[in-house]
């Protein structure tokens, strides 16, 4: 009796001016596990929480390096992300072939934005069910972009998408002013802390369920997983234990998490 008559396809507006299929697609993003990204003046960092479907299965891929200068982190339908990342890889190689230069992050972001938008305006098509964070360094410095199924893209200093990402965003908002002048290590720690704030109380960040991607002015974008991130996990959360009470920002973050 409350059946929604305006959500059968992505080309029909509801009388309130909404496109329900697109909004549902955005819900798919919220089902994905959380990913966060931050940029400083010199670096761009992505951090992601990986889930495994069951104990025996492997963890899903959350960060995909696309070109030497940037990578993406995804939340939502992994298969849709693969289609998009294949497209991005091709476009990046094409830029290198035709002009001999790395593609601009703003450029690649608007290209996938355009692709996603066409899906919302053609009958029979389905919006992408995935959100992306695109982070790296190009000729114009470090950048972080957020991409949504609607085709909306925004550049940000810090951002988080996926399940419970509001908590990560709260952390990022509180520390927003610090990021610009952060060192590489500090930036990674902020990203890990933001990620940690999104976890439910009974969960921890481990070498198995965490992925990191780091790009910088002087370094290629590289993904870190497994034992490579053990050091960062240790130092980040030891510090927090010690300084946790003193630093009220992170203290309040914990409260919100419950």
């Amino acid at each position: 009796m409350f059946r929604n008559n305006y959500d059968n396809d992505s080309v029909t507006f509801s009388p309130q001016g909404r496109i329900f299929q697109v909004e549902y697609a955005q819900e798919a993003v919220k089902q994905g596990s959380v990913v966060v990204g931050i940029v400083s003046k010199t670096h761009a960092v992505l951090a992601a929480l990986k889930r495994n479907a069951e104990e025996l299965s492997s963890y899903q891929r959350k960060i995909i390096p696309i070109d030497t200068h940037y990578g993406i982190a995804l939340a939502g339908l992994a298969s849709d992300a693969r289609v998009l990342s294949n497209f991005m890889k091709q476009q990046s190689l094409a830029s290198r072939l035709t002009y001999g230069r790395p593609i601009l992050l703003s450029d690649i972001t608007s290209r996938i934005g355009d692709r996603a938008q066409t899906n919302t305006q053609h009958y029979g098509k389905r919006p992408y069910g995935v959100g992306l964070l695109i982070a790296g360094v190009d000729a114009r410095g470090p950048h972080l972009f957020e991409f949504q199924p609607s085709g909306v893209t925004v550049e940000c200093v810090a951002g988080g998408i996926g399940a419970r990402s509001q908590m990560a965003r709260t952390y990022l908002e509180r520390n927003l002013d610090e990021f610009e002048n952060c060192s590489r290590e500090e930036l990674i720690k902020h990203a890990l802390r933001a990620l940690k704030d999104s976890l439910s109380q009974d969960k921890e960040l481990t070498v198995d369920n965490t992925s990191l991607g780091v790009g910088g002015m002087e370094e290629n974008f590289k993904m870190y997983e497994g034992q490579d991130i053990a050091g960062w996990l240790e130092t980040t959360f030891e510090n927090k234990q010690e300084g946790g009470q003193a630093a009220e920002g992170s203290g309040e973050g914990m409260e919100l998490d419950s």
Partner: protein
Amino acid sequence: MNHFPEAWGRPRDDIYGSYNASYLPQSRGGLQSHHQPTTHTQQPIVTGTSVLALKFSTGVVIAADNLASYGSLARFTDVHRLKPFNKRAVVGFGGDVSDMQYLDRLLNSLDVEENYTSPTGDAKSDDDRALVDAPLMSAKNLHTYLAKVMYKRRTDFNPLWNALLVCGLDEKDQPFLASADLLGTTFSAPSMATGFGAHLAQPLLRRVAPDEAATQELSKEKAVEAIKECMKVLFYRDARSMNEYSVAVIDQSGVELKEDEKLENQSWAFADRIKGYGTQTV
């Protein structure tokens, strides 16, 4: 009068004679056995001669005269064959002038496209401003692109009949000089010359800059002087050259282009020793 509809709107046979269908294929009552093949540029028509360029410690100097020839006729004397692309790249064109003009239009639309995506974000400091304002396309990027265009067109059997020199600064602001021709062949060297200049000017330029290390030691003044000297030698010996030319210097401060230079201090003293063409000895 022929009142059948087939005749409406056609020239009257009794006045103009019957329609000459010889150019049509046989299936249409003509004489041609089949359609003519599609034809592309098979030779250049209005041409520009040599382009010269030389790297020096902080940039590149490039020159080409202002003549466009129609065969052996000096047809146009105010054709500028150096095209500045942005603050750090200039392209010099030898060969067909209409293809040069096509490429110039192509480069203009590329430049518009490049500048259309306005700088992202706000510049907070002077450092940022420099990063945001710097032209994205370096001379190296431009050369890669033009080489692809030339190679594509030769592969389609529809070549752009040019020899190009692309010079300026690369993405690290180092001097850059490279060429591309109608076959898509590319190479780079401390000094370069297209057309007749490859025979006459290149040996002189190589004496000034035999290798990359030598260009590091070469001052802008010395480089410009060497190029001007070569332009003079070319005017003495290249029958398709003229004494007015363009010269551009590209370095960190940008492009400095002069399009109405004149050859100075010519000396034709050598001319009275020349007798005829090759075999004549009397």
